[in-house]
Protein backbone atom coordinates (compact mmCIF):
# COMPACT_ATOMS: atom_id res chain seq x y z
CA UNK A 1 0.00 0.00 0.00
CA UNK A 2 1.12 3.58 -0.64
CA UNK A 3 2.60 5.32 2.34
CA UNK A 4 0.24 7.65 4.15
CA UNK A 5 1.42 11.25 3.95
CA UNK A 6 1.31 12.80 7.39
CA UNK A 7 2.16 16.31 8.55
CA UNK A 8 2.48 18.04 11.91
CA UNK A 9 1.37 21.63 12.38
CA UNK A 10 1.55 23.81 15.44
CA UNK A 11 -0.46 26.69 16.84
CA UNK A 12 -0.43 28.03 20.43
CA UNK A 13 1.52 25.32 22.23
CA UNK A 14 4.92 24.35 23.59
CA UNK A 15 5.40 21.82 20.76
CA UNK A 16 6.08 19.27 23.47
CA UNK A 17 3.69 16.83 21.81
CA UNK A 18 5.84 16.83 18.68
CA UNK A 19 8.90 16.27 20.86
CA UNK A 20 7.07 13.40 22.56
CA UNK A 21 6.72 11.69 19.16
CA UNK A 22 10.48 11.87 18.64
CA UNK A 23 10.90 10.28 22.10
CA UNK A 24 9.95 6.98 20.51
CA UNK A 25 13.64 6.67 19.84
CA UNK A 26 15.30 5.93 16.53
CA UNK A 27 14.33 2.29 16.17
CA UNK A 28 10.59 2.72 16.53
CA UNK A 29 10.44 6.08 14.82
CA UNK A 30 12.44 4.97 11.79
CA UNK A 31 10.34 1.82 11.56
CA UNK A 32 7.23 3.99 11.50
CA UNK A 33 8.73 5.88 8.54
CA UNK A 34 8.52 2.65 6.52
CA UNK A 35 4.75 3.02 6.69
CA UNK A 36 4.12 6.74 6.66
CA UNK A 37 5.79 9.63 4.92
CA UNK A 38 6.22 12.66 7.15
CA UNK A 39 5.98 15.67 4.88
CA UNK A 40 5.99 18.46 7.46
CA UNK A 41 7.28 18.30 11.03
CA UNK A 42 8.86 21.46 12.38
CA UNK A 43 10.57 19.80 15.32
CA UNK A 44 12.45 17.34 13.14
CA UNK A 45 12.27 18.47 9.51
CA UNK A 46 12.93 21.76 7.70
CA UNK A 47 10.78 21.02 4.63
CA UNK A 48 7.26 22.40 4.29
CA UNK A 49 4.49 21.38 1.93
CA UNK A 50 1.41 22.72 0.20
CA UNK A 51 0.47 19.31 -1.23
CA UNK A 52 -2.56 17.24 -0.18
CA UNK A 53 -1.93 15.17 2.95
CA UNK A 54 -3.59 12.09 4.37
CA UNK A 55 -3.33 12.88 8.07
CA UNK A 56 -2.79 16.33 9.58
CA UNK A 57 -1.72 16.28 13.21
CA UNK A 58 -2.45 19.75 14.52
CA UNK A 59 -0.91 20.79 17.80
CA UNK A 60 -1.85 23.87 19.82
CA UNK A 61 -4.95 25.87 20.54
CA UNK A 62 -6.68 28.50 18.44
CA UNK A 63 -5.96 31.86 20.08
CA UNK A 64 -5.90 34.35 17.21
CA UNK A 65 -8.40 35.17 14.51
CA UNK A 66 -5.42 35.44 12.15
CA UNK A 67 -4.87 31.67 12.50
CA UNK A 68 -8.29 30.80 11.13
CA UNK A 69 -7.19 30.93 7.47
CA UNK A 70 -4.19 28.68 8.11
CA UNK A 71 -6.34 26.10 9.92
CA UNK A 72 -8.89 26.16 7.11
CA UNK A 73 -6.15 25.72 4.54
CA UNK A 74 -4.81 22.64 6.38
CA UNK A 75 -8.33 21.20 6.63
CA UNK A 76 -8.89 21.70 2.88
CA UNK A 77 -5.93 19.58 1.92
CA UNK A 78 -6.07 16.98 4.71
CA UNK A 79 -8.11 13.82 4.42
CA UNK A 80 -8.06 13.30 8.20
CA UNK A 81 -7.45 15.92 10.90
CA UNK A 82 -6.26 14.88 14.35
CA UNK A 83 -6.25 17.43 17.17
CA UNK A 84 -2.86 16.50 18.52
CA UNK A 85 -2.43 17.08 22.24
CA UNK A 86 -4.56 18.74 24.87
CA UNK A 87 -4.12 22.34 23.63
CA UNK A 88 -5.61 21.42 20.25
CA UNK A 89 -8.22 19.05 21.64
CA UNK A 90 -9.71 21.23 24.40
CA UNK A 91 -7.54 24.35 24.71
CA UNK A 92 -5.49 22.62 27.39
CA UNK A 93 -3.47 24.63 29.89
CA UNK A 94 -3.74 27.67 27.62
CA UNK A 95 -7.43 27.92 28.49
CA UNK A 96 -6.51 28.99 32.03
CA UNK A 97 -6.04 32.51 30.71
CA UNK A 98 -9.66 32.57 29.54
CA UNK A 99 -10.63 33.10 33.16
CA UNK A 100 -7.96 35.61 34.14
CA UNK A 101 -7.08 39.20 33.20
CA UNK A 102 -3.63 39.77 34.69
CA UNK A 103 -1.76 36.85 33.13
CA UNK A 104 0.43 38.96 30.85
CA UNK A 105 1.76 41.05 33.75
CA UNK A 106 2.12 37.98 35.94
CA UNK A 107 4.13 36.07 33.34
CA UNK A 108 6.01 38.74 31.39
CA UNK A 109 6.27 41.63 33.91
CA UNK A 110 7.61 44.75 32.22
CA UNK A 111 7.45 43.08 28.80
CA UNK A 112 3.71 42.55 29.10
CA UNK A 113 3.03 45.14 26.42
CA UNK A 114 4.83 43.26 23.62
CA UNK A 115 2.40 43.13 20.67
CA UNK A 116 2.86 39.43 19.94
CA UNK A 117 1.39 38.64 23.37
CA UNK A 118 -1.99 39.92 22.24
CA UNK A 119 -4.29 36.99 21.74
CA UNK A 120 -7.90 35.99 22.21
CA UNK A 121 -9.37 33.14 24.23
CA UNK A 122 -7.55 29.84 23.91
CA UNK A 123 -9.97 27.45 22.22
CA UNK A 124 -9.83 23.95 20.74
CA UNK A 125 -9.19 23.90 17.00
CA UNK A 126 -12.57 22.22 16.59
CA UNK A 127 -14.20 25.67 16.94
CA UNK A 128 -12.69 26.53 13.54
CA UNK A 129 -12.46 23.27 11.58
CA UNK A 130 -13.90 19.77 11.70
CA UNK A 131 -11.69 17.48 13.78
CA UNK A 132 -11.89 13.77 13.02
CA UNK A 133 -10.03 12.44 16.06
CA UNK A 134 -8.52 13.78 19.27
CA UNK A 135 -5.19 12.61 20.62
CA UNK A 136 -5.60 13.77 24.20
CA UNK A 137 -2.94 14.38 26.81
CA UNK A 138 -0.34 16.84 27.95
CA UNK A 139 1.71 15.57 26.33
CA UNK A 140 0.09 13.03 24.02
CA UNK A 141 0.60 9.33 24.74
CA UNK A 142 2.89 8.32 21.88
CA UNK A 143 1.74 4.71 22.02
CA UNK A 144 -1.85 5.83 21.65
CA UNK A 145 -0.92 8.04 18.69
CA UNK A 146 0.87 5.08 17.14
CA UNK A 147 -2.34 3.03 17.49
CA UNK A 148 -4.38 5.91 16.09
CA UNK A 149 -2.11 6.12 13.03
CA UNK A 150 -2.00 2.31 12.72
CA UNK A 151 -5.78 2.11 12.65
CA UNK A 152 -5.91 4.80 9.96
CA UNK A 153 -3.17 3.05 7.92
CA UNK A 154 -5.22 -0.18 8.08
CA UNK A 155 -8.51 1.55 7.35
CA UNK A 156 -9.95 0.83 10.81
CA UNK A 157 -11.86 3.16 13.09
CA UNK A 158 -9.57 4.31 15.95
CA UNK A 159 -10.87 3.83 19.48
CA UNK A 160 -10.42 6.79 21.83
CA UNK A 161 -11.41 5.99 25.43
CA UNK A 162 -14.02 8.14 27.12
CA UNK A 163 -14.00 6.31 30.45
CA UNK A 164 -12.29 7.65 33.60
CA UNK A 165 -8.73 6.99 34.72
CA UNK A 166 -10.10 4.76 37.54
CA UNK A 167 -10.54 2.05 34.90
CA UNK A 168 -6.83 2.09 34.06
CA UNK A 169 -5.91 2.14 37.76
CA UNK A 170 -8.06 -0.89 38.50
CA UNK A 171 -6.67 -2.80 35.52
CA UNK A 172 -3.20 -2.42 37.00
CA UNK A 173 -4.37 -2.86 40.60
CA UNK A 174 -3.09 0.50 41.78
CA UNK A 175 -3.85 1.50 45.36
CA UNK A 176 -6.42 4.30 45.08
CA UNK A 177 -5.07 7.75 46.04
CA UNK A 178 -8.14 8.18 48.24
CA UNK A 179 -7.09 5.09 50.17
CA UNK A 180 -3.84 6.83 51.03
CA UNK A 181 -5.59 9.97 52.27
CA UNK A 182 -4.70 11.83 49.11
CA UNK A 183 -6.84 13.46 46.43
CA UNK A 184 -7.19 12.56 42.73
CA UNK A 185 -9.11 13.72 39.66
CA UNK A 186 -9.13 10.20 38.21
CA UNK A 187 -12.91 9.71 38.57
CA UNK A 188 -13.61 12.56 36.11
CA UNK A 189 -10.41 12.41 34.05
CA UNK A 190 -10.27 10.83 30.61
CA UNK A 191 -8.27 7.60 30.53
CA UNK A 192 -6.08 6.19 27.80
CA UNK A 193 -2.77 7.07 29.42
CA UNK A 194 -2.57 3.80 31.36
CA UNK A 195 -2.69 5.75 34.64
CA UNK A 196 1.06 5.99 35.32
CA UNK A 197 0.73 8.83 37.85
CA UNK A 198 -1.44 7.15 40.51
CA UNK A 199 0.67 4.00 40.06
CA UNK A 200 3.64 6.11 41.19
CA UNK A 201 1.68 7.53 44.12
CA UNK A 202 0.90 10.82 42.37
CA UNK A 203 -2.69 12.08 41.98
CA UNK A 204 -4.21 12.32 38.50
CA UNK A 205 -4.45 15.94 37.37
CA UNK A 206 -6.67 15.20 34.35
CA UNK A 207 -4.08 16.16 31.75
CA UNK A 208 -6.22 14.42 29.12
CA UNK A 209 -9.19 16.56 30.11
CA UNK A 210 -12.54 15.42 31.41
CA UNK A 211 -14.60 12.45 30.32
CA UNK A 212 -17.62 13.40 28.23
CA UNK A 213 -20.08 13.04 31.11
CA UNK A 214 -17.86 14.10 34.03
CA UNK A 215 -19.75 14.36 37.32
CA UNK A 216 -18.17 17.61 38.49
CA UNK A 217 -20.57 18.18 41.39
CA UNK A 218 -19.60 14.77 42.73
CA UNK A 219 -15.82 15.28 42.43
CA UNK A 220 -16.09 18.62 44.24
CA UNK A 221 -17.95 16.92 47.05
CA UNK A 222 -15.36 14.13 47.23
CA UNK A 223 -12.49 16.63 47.31
CA UNK A 224 -14.15 18.40 50.23
CA UNK A 225 -15.33 15.33 52.15
CA UNK A 226 -12.51 12.88 51.54
CA UNK A 227 -9.50 15.09 50.79
CA UNK A 228 -10.32 17.98 53.12
CA UNK A 229 -10.26 20.68 50.43
CA UNK A 230 -12.04 24.00 50.92
CA UNK A 231 -15.07 24.41 48.65
CA UNK A 232 -13.34 26.98 46.47
CA UNK A 233 -10.18 24.89 46.09
CA UNK A 234 -12.29 21.85 45.28
CA UNK A 235 -14.07 23.76 42.52
CA UNK A 236 -10.82 25.16 41.10
CA UNK A 237 -8.75 21.97 41.41
CA UNK A 238 -9.55 20.55 37.98
CA UNK A 239 -9.04 23.82 36.07
CA UNK A 240 -5.39 23.27 35.11
CA UNK A 241 -6.21 21.16 32.06
CA UNK A 242 -9.98 21.47 31.83
CA UNK A 243 -10.68 25.20 31.96
CA UNK A 244 -12.75 24.97 28.75
CA UNK A 245 -14.73 21.92 29.80
CA UNK A 246 -16.98 22.93 32.69
CA UNK A 247 -19.85 25.33 33.17
CA UNK A 248 -17.37 28.25 33.27
CA UNK A 249 -16.90 27.99 29.52
CA UNK A 250 -20.57 27.81 28.62
Amino acid sequence: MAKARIAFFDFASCEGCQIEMTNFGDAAFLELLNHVEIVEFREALSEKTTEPIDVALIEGSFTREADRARLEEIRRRARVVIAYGQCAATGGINALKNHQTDYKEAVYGQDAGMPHLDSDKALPISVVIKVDYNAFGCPINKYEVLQLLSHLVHGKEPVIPSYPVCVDCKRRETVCRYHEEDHCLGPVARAGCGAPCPASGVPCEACRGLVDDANLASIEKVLVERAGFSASRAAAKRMLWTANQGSESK
Partner: protein
Amino acid sequence: MSDYFINEKDFGDFLKRLVRARNVLGPKAKRGHFVFGRIENPEDLRLDYDVTILPPKKAFFPTCQDLVRFDGDQVSGCIDPVDQVLFGVHFYDVKAIDMTDLLFAERGEDRNYTANRQAATIVASSIQSVSPRAFWGSVGKEVEPKGHDAFLTKVARGYVYQSRTPKGSALLELGKFRKAEATELEAARKADEAVKKKCPETLKYGAAEVAKKVRAAFPDEKLWERLSERCFSCGSCNLVCPTCYCFDVQDHWNVDQRSGARTRYWDACLTSEFSKVSLGAGNSENFRESRGERFRHRILRKASYLNEKLGGPACVGCGRCAAACTADIADPVKTIREVMEAAS
Protein backbone atom coordinates in the same frame (compact mmCIF):
# COMPACT_ATOMS: atom_id res chain seq x y z
CA MET B 1 -10.40 -36.69 50.14
CA SER B 2 -8.97 -36.33 53.62
CA ASP B 3 -8.19 -33.92 56.42
CA TYR B 4 -4.67 -33.16 57.61
CA PHE B 5 -2.84 -31.06 60.16
CA ILE B 6 0.51 -29.31 60.02
CA ASN B 7 2.34 -27.71 62.94
CA GLU B 8 2.99 -23.98 62.93
CA LYS B 9 6.75 -24.63 62.95
CA ASP B 10 6.55 -27.03 59.97
CA PHE B 11 4.28 -24.72 58.01
CA GLY B 12 7.16 -22.37 57.12
CA ASP B 13 9.14 -25.29 55.65
CA PHE B 14 6.10 -26.41 53.68
CA LEU B 15 5.76 -22.91 52.18
CA LYS B 16 9.46 -22.81 51.35
CA ARG B 17 9.20 -26.07 49.44
CA LEU B 18 5.93 -25.05 47.86
CA VAL B 19 7.25 -21.80 46.36
CA ARG B 20 10.32 -23.65 45.09
CA ALA B 21 8.33 -26.46 43.52
CA ARG B 22 5.36 -24.57 42.13
CA ASN B 23 4.30 -21.25 40.68
CA VAL B 24 2.47 -19.76 43.68
CA LEU B 25 0.12 -16.78 43.66
CA GLY B 26 -0.96 -15.51 47.03
CA PRO B 27 -1.96 -12.41 48.98
CA LYS B 28 0.90 -9.97 49.49
CA ALA B 29 1.17 -6.41 50.77
CA LYS B 30 1.06 -3.41 48.45
CA ARG B 31 1.24 0.06 50.00
CA GLY B 32 -0.76 -0.97 53.06
CA HIS B 33 -3.28 -2.96 51.01
CA PHE B 34 -3.20 -6.45 49.54
CA VAL B 35 -2.98 -7.97 46.08
CA PHE B 36 -2.64 -11.49 44.74
CA GLY B 37 0.86 -11.74 43.36
CA ARG B 38 3.65 -14.19 42.68
CA ILE B 39 5.08 -15.48 45.95
CA GLU B 40 8.79 -16.15 45.76
CA ASN B 41 9.59 -15.76 49.45
CA PRO B 42 7.24 -17.36 51.97
CA GLU B 43 7.63 -14.23 54.15
CA ASP B 44 5.72 -12.28 51.48
CA LEU B 45 2.65 -14.48 51.84
CA ARG B 46 0.14 -12.61 54.00
CA LEU B 47 -2.50 -15.10 55.10
CA ASP B 48 -3.63 -12.42 57.58
CA TYR B 49 -4.87 -10.22 54.69
CA ASP B 50 -8.41 -8.88 54.86
CA VAL B 51 -9.24 -8.52 51.16
CA THR B 52 -7.25 -7.92 47.96
CA ILE B 53 -7.79 -4.93 45.63
CA LEU B 54 -8.63 -7.20 42.67
CA PRO B 55 -10.15 -10.65 43.06
CA PRO B 56 -8.08 -13.76 42.27
CA LYS B 57 -9.99 -14.45 39.03
CA LYS B 58 -7.24 -12.37 37.40
CA ALA B 59 -5.09 -15.51 37.56
CA PHE B 60 -7.30 -17.11 34.88
CA PHE B 61 -8.79 -14.01 33.31
CA PRO B 62 -6.06 -11.34 33.37
CA THR B 63 -7.11 -7.68 33.25
CA CYS B 64 -5.45 -7.53 29.80
CA GLN B 65 -5.20 -10.83 27.94
CA ASP B 66 -4.01 -11.45 24.40
CA LEU B 67 -6.46 -13.72 22.60
CA VAL B 68 -4.77 -13.87 19.23
CA ARG B 69 -1.43 -12.72 17.88
CA PHE B 70 -0.96 -12.05 14.20
CA ASP B 71 1.96 -11.49 11.87
CA GLY B 72 0.83 -10.76 8.35
CA ASP B 73 -1.52 -13.61 7.46
CA GLN B 74 -0.21 -15.85 10.26
CA VAL B 75 -2.62 -15.96 13.18
CA SER B 76 -2.06 -17.88 16.39
CA GLY B 77 -4.09 -18.33 19.54
CA CYS B 78 -2.63 -17.40 22.91
CA ILE B 79 -3.99 -20.21 25.06
CA ASP B 80 -0.96 -21.29 27.04
CA PRO B 81 -2.01 -22.36 30.51
CA VAL B 82 0.54 -22.22 33.30
CA ASP B 83 0.47 -24.45 36.31
CA GLN B 84 -0.21 -22.17 39.24
CA VAL B 85 -1.24 -22.58 42.85
CA LEU B 86 -3.59 -19.90 44.17
CA PHE B 87 -2.77 -20.05 47.82
CA GLY B 88 -4.90 -18.34 50.47
CA VAL B 89 -8.17 -17.65 48.65
CA HIS B 90 -10.99 -16.68 51.02
CA PHE B 91 -14.23 -18.64 50.75
CA TYR B 92 -16.17 -15.69 49.23
CA ASP B 93 -13.68 -15.56 46.35
CA VAL B 94 -13.95 -19.33 45.90
CA LYS B 95 -17.70 -18.85 45.52
CA ALA B 96 -17.08 -16.14 42.93
CA ILE B 97 -14.65 -18.36 41.02
CA ASP B 98 -17.32 -21.09 40.98
CA MET B 99 -19.60 -18.55 39.31
CA THR B 100 -17.12 -17.38 36.68
CA ASP B 101 -16.26 -21.06 36.04
CA LEU B 102 -19.88 -21.65 35.13
CA LEU B 103 -20.32 -18.42 33.16
CA PHE B 104 -17.21 -18.92 31.03
CA ALA B 105 -17.98 -22.58 30.38
CA GLU B 106 -21.61 -22.31 29.33
CA ARG B 107 -22.86 -21.71 25.79
CA GLY B 108 -19.54 -21.89 23.98
CA GLU B 109 -16.69 -22.59 26.33
CA ASP B 110 -14.21 -19.73 26.67
CA ARG B 111 -10.95 -21.66 26.48
CA ASN B 112 -8.91 -18.53 27.22
CA TYR B 113 -10.41 -18.74 30.70
CA THR B 114 -11.06 -22.43 31.20
CA ALA B 115 -7.58 -23.58 30.13
CA ASN B 116 -5.98 -21.36 32.79
CA ARG B 117 -8.59 -22.38 35.32
CA GLN B 118 -8.07 -26.10 34.77
CA ALA B 119 -4.32 -25.74 35.17
CA ALA B 120 -4.72 -24.05 38.56
CA THR B 121 -4.79 -25.46 42.05
CA ILE B 122 -6.81 -23.45 44.55
CA VAL B 123 -5.98 -23.63 48.24
CA ALA B 124 -8.63 -21.67 50.10
CA SER B 125 -7.83 -20.30 53.51
CA SER B 126 -9.67 -19.18 56.61
CA ILE B 127 -10.24 -15.47 57.13
CA GLN B 128 -7.92 -14.06 59.77
CA SER B 129 -8.75 -10.35 59.29
CA VAL B 130 -12.10 -8.88 58.30
CA SER B 131 -12.20 -5.94 55.88
CA PRO B 132 -14.20 -2.87 56.94
CA ARG B 133 -16.83 -3.29 54.19
CA ALA B 134 -17.24 -7.07 54.25
CA PHE B 135 -20.69 -8.67 54.39
CA TRP B 136 -19.87 -12.21 53.25
CA GLY B 137 -21.36 -13.50 56.50
CA SER B 138 -24.88 -12.68 55.39
CA VAL B 139 -25.11 -12.76 51.59
CA GLY B 140 -25.85 -15.83 49.47
CA LYS B 141 -25.77 -18.20 52.45
CA GLU B 142 -27.48 -20.85 50.31
CA VAL B 143 -24.41 -21.05 48.04
CA GLU B 144 -21.56 -23.27 49.23
CA PRO B 145 -18.02 -22.69 47.97
CA LYS B 146 -16.95 -25.76 46.01
CA GLY B 147 -14.30 -25.17 43.34
CA HIS B 148 -11.28 -25.23 45.63
CA ASP B 149 -8.85 -28.12 45.89
CA ALA B 150 -8.07 -27.72 49.56
CA PHE B 151 -9.06 -25.55 52.50
CA LEU B 152 -6.54 -24.30 55.01
CA THR B 153 -7.73 -23.16 58.45
CA LYS B 154 -5.54 -21.58 61.09
CA VAL B 155 -6.15 -23.17 64.48
CA ALA B 156 -4.15 -23.28 67.70
CA ARG B 157 -0.57 -24.47 67.07
CA GLY B 158 -0.97 -24.99 63.36
CA TYR B 159 -3.19 -25.38 60.32
CA VAL B 160 -5.88 -27.83 59.34
CA TYR B 161 -5.55 -28.71 55.63
CA GLN B 162 -8.69 -30.25 54.19
CA SER B 163 -7.91 -31.75 50.83
CA ARG B 164 -10.85 -32.08 48.45
CA THR B 165 -9.23 -33.18 45.19
CA PRO B 166 -6.12 -35.00 43.91
CA LYS B 167 -4.67 -31.54 43.08
CA GLY B 168 -5.11 -30.57 46.70
CA SER B 169 -3.54 -33.81 47.92
CA ALA B 170 -0.60 -33.38 45.57
CA LEU B 171 0.75 -30.62 47.80
CA LEU B 172 0.87 -32.85 50.89
CA GLU B 173 4.22 -34.34 49.97
CA LEU B 174 5.81 -30.91 50.32
CA GLY B 175 5.19 -30.69 54.07
CA LYS B 176 5.08 -32.65 57.30
CA PHE B 177 1.35 -33.23 57.29
CA ARG B 178 -0.38 -35.84 59.44
CA LYS B 179 -4.02 -36.88 59.63
CA ALA B 180 -6.05 -34.31 61.55
CA GLU B 181 -7.63 -35.26 64.84
CA ALA B 182 -11.33 -34.76 65.51
CA THR B 183 -10.61 -31.97 67.98
CA GLU B 184 -8.55 -30.10 65.38
CA LEU B 185 -11.30 -30.45 62.78
CA GLU B 186 -13.83 -29.21 65.28
CA ALA B 187 -11.60 -26.23 66.09
CA ALA B 188 -11.35 -25.45 62.36
CA ARG B 189 -15.11 -25.70 61.90
CA LYS B 190 -15.68 -23.39 64.86
CA ALA B 191 -13.11 -20.85 63.64
CA ASP B 192 -14.73 -20.70 60.19
CA GLU B 193 -18.19 -20.38 61.74
CA ALA B 194 -17.11 -17.71 64.22
CA VAL B 195 -15.48 -15.45 61.65
CA LYS B 196 -18.69 -15.33 59.61
CA LYS B 197 -20.31 -13.43 62.45
CA LYS B 198 -17.60 -10.77 62.46
CA CYS B 199 -18.59 -8.86 59.32
CA PRO B 200 -19.11 -5.16 60.01
CA GLU B 201 -22.00 -5.09 57.53
CA THR B 202 -25.03 -7.35 57.32
CA LEU B 203 -27.54 -7.88 54.56
CA LYS B 204 -30.74 -8.40 56.49
CA TYR B 205 -32.86 -9.86 53.70
CA GLY B 206 -32.94 -13.26 52.04
CA ALA B 207 -31.83 -13.67 48.41
CA ALA B 208 -35.28 -14.54 47.02
CA GLU B 209 -36.93 -11.58 48.68
CA VAL B 210 -34.20 -9.22 47.45
CA ALA B 211 -34.33 -10.61 43.91
CA LYS B 212 -38.06 -10.08 43.73
CA LYS B 213 -38.13 -6.58 45.18
CA VAL B 214 -35.17 -5.08 43.32
CA ARG B 215 -36.69 -6.39 40.11
CA ALA B 216 -40.05 -4.88 41.01
CA ALA B 217 -38.25 -1.55 41.59
CA PHE B 218 -37.05 -1.51 37.97
CA PRO B 219 -39.54 1.15 36.79
CA ASP B 220 -38.84 3.48 39.72
CA GLU B 221 -36.59 5.82 37.75
CA LYS B 222 -36.54 8.46 40.48
CA LEU B 223 -35.13 5.94 42.96
CA TRP B 224 -32.30 4.86 40.66
CA GLU B 225 -31.57 8.46 39.71
CA ARG B 226 -31.30 9.38 43.37
CA LEU B 227 -29.08 6.41 44.25
CA SER B 228 -26.71 7.19 41.38
CA GLU B 229 -26.62 10.98 41.66
CA ARG B 230 -22.99 10.98 42.76
CA CYS B 231 -21.87 8.20 40.39
CA PHE B 232 -18.74 8.94 38.33
CA SER B 233 -19.49 6.18 35.80
CA CYS B 234 -15.91 5.10 36.52
CA GLY B 235 -16.66 1.40 36.63
CA SER B 236 -14.57 0.79 39.77
CA CYS B 237 -17.42 -1.22 41.33
CA ASN B 238 -17.40 -3.56 38.32
CA LEU B 239 -13.65 -3.78 37.94
CA VAL B 240 -13.01 -4.95 41.50
CA CYS B 241 -16.00 -7.32 41.51
CA PRO B 242 -15.10 -11.02 41.65
CA THR B 243 -18.23 -12.03 39.72
CA CYS B 244 -18.09 -9.43 36.92
CA TYR B 245 -16.85 -11.01 33.73
CA CYS B 246 -17.43 -8.54 30.88
CA PHE B 247 -14.57 -7.63 28.61
CA ASP B 248 -13.84 -5.41 25.65
CA VAL B 249 -11.73 -6.58 22.70
CA GLN B 250 -9.31 -4.32 20.83
CA ASP B 251 -6.74 -4.82 18.09
CA HIS B 252 -3.26 -3.35 18.28
CA TRP B 253 -0.60 -3.19 15.63
CA ASN B 254 3.07 -3.24 16.41
CA VAL B 255 5.11 -0.47 14.86
CA ASP B 256 6.03 -2.75 11.92
CA GLN B 257 2.34 -2.59 10.89
CA ARG B 258 2.41 -6.31 10.11
CA SER B 259 2.23 -7.92 13.50
CA GLY B 260 0.09 -7.26 16.51
CA ALA B 261 -2.48 -8.71 18.84
CA ARG B 262 -6.17 -8.91 19.57
CA THR B 263 -6.49 -8.28 23.30
CA ARG B 264 -9.32 -8.36 25.76
CA TYR B 265 -9.61 -5.99 28.70
CA TRP B 266 -11.83 -6.06 31.76
CA ASP B 267 -14.76 -3.82 30.96
CA ALA B 268 -17.34 -2.13 33.17
CA CYS B 269 -21.05 -1.63 32.55
CA LEU B 270 -21.09 1.48 34.74
CA THR B 271 -19.02 3.39 32.18
CA SER B 272 -21.08 5.36 29.70
CA GLU B 273 -19.50 3.88 26.60
CA PHE B 274 -20.11 0.25 27.59
CA SER B 275 -23.65 0.31 26.23
CA LYS B 276 -22.88 2.42 23.17
CA VAL B 277 -23.45 0.45 19.99
CA SER B 278 -22.93 1.27 16.35
CA LEU B 279 -25.92 1.76 14.10
CA GLY B 280 -23.64 1.96 11.09
CA ALA B 281 -22.66 4.91 8.89
CA GLY B 282 -21.22 6.78 11.86
CA ASN B 283 -24.41 6.61 13.91
CA SER B 284 -24.60 5.18 17.39
CA GLU B 285 -27.05 4.46 20.16
CA ASN B 286 -26.52 4.14 23.90
CA PHE B 287 -29.04 1.74 25.39
CA ARG B 288 -28.21 2.70 29.00
CA GLU B 289 -27.59 6.37 28.61
CA SER B 290 -28.24 7.64 32.14
CA ARG B 291 -26.28 6.98 35.33
CA GLY B 292 -29.46 5.67 36.95
CA GLU B 293 -29.98 3.04 34.25
CA ARG B 294 -26.40 1.83 34.55
CA PHE B 295 -26.49 1.79 38.35
CA ARG B 296 -29.76 -0.16 38.28
CA HIS B 297 -28.32 -2.63 35.80
CA ARG B 298 -25.45 -3.52 38.10
CA ILE B 299 -27.67 -4.04 41.14
CA LEU B 300 -30.07 -6.19 39.14
CA ARG B 301 -27.22 -8.26 37.70
CA LYS B 302 -25.87 -8.88 41.18
CA ALA B 303 -29.14 -9.38 43.02
CA SER B 304 -31.59 -10.83 40.53
CA TYR B 305 -30.84 -11.57 36.87
CA LEU B 306 -28.34 -14.40 37.40
CA ASN B 307 -29.83 -15.95 40.55
CA GLU B 308 -31.54 -18.86 38.83
CA LYS B 309 -28.46 -19.80 36.87
CA LEU B 310 -26.08 -19.48 39.83
CA GLY B 311 -28.35 -20.80 42.55
CA GLY B 312 -28.04 -17.54 44.47
CA PRO B 313 -27.06 -13.90 44.04
CA ALA B 314 -24.06 -12.97 41.89
CA CYS B 315 -22.63 -11.19 44.90
CA VAL B 316 -20.40 -12.83 47.48
CA GLY B 317 -20.18 -9.98 49.98
CA CYS B 318 -16.47 -9.19 49.60
CA GLY B 319 -17.22 -5.46 49.92
CA ARG B 320 -14.62 -4.53 47.31
CA CYS B 321 -17.11 -2.37 45.38
CA ALA B 322 -18.06 -0.47 48.52
CA ALA B 323 -14.41 0.25 49.28
CA ALA B 324 -13.47 1.10 45.69
CA CYS B 325 -16.31 3.56 45.09
CA THR B 326 -14.83 7.03 45.56
CA ALA B 327 -18.28 8.57 45.98
CA ASP B 328 -19.19 5.70 48.36
CA ILE B 329 -22.53 4.90 46.75
CA ALA B 330 -21.80 1.36 45.51
CA ASP B 331 -22.21 -0.59 48.77
CA PRO B 332 -24.74 -3.36 47.97
CA VAL B 333 -25.87 -3.55 51.61
CA LYS B 334 -26.87 0.12 51.70
CA THR B 335 -28.27 0.12 48.18
CA ILE B 336 -30.38 -2.98 48.67
CA ARG B 337 -31.63 -1.65 51.99
CA GLU B 338 -32.74 1.57 50.31
CA VAL B 339 -34.44 -0.30 47.49
CA MET B 340 -36.19 -2.64 49.93
CA GLU B 341 -37.35 0.26 52.08
CA ALA B 342 -38.55 2.23 49.05
CA ALA B 343 -40.50 -0.85 47.95
CA SER B 344 -42.22 -1.48 51.26
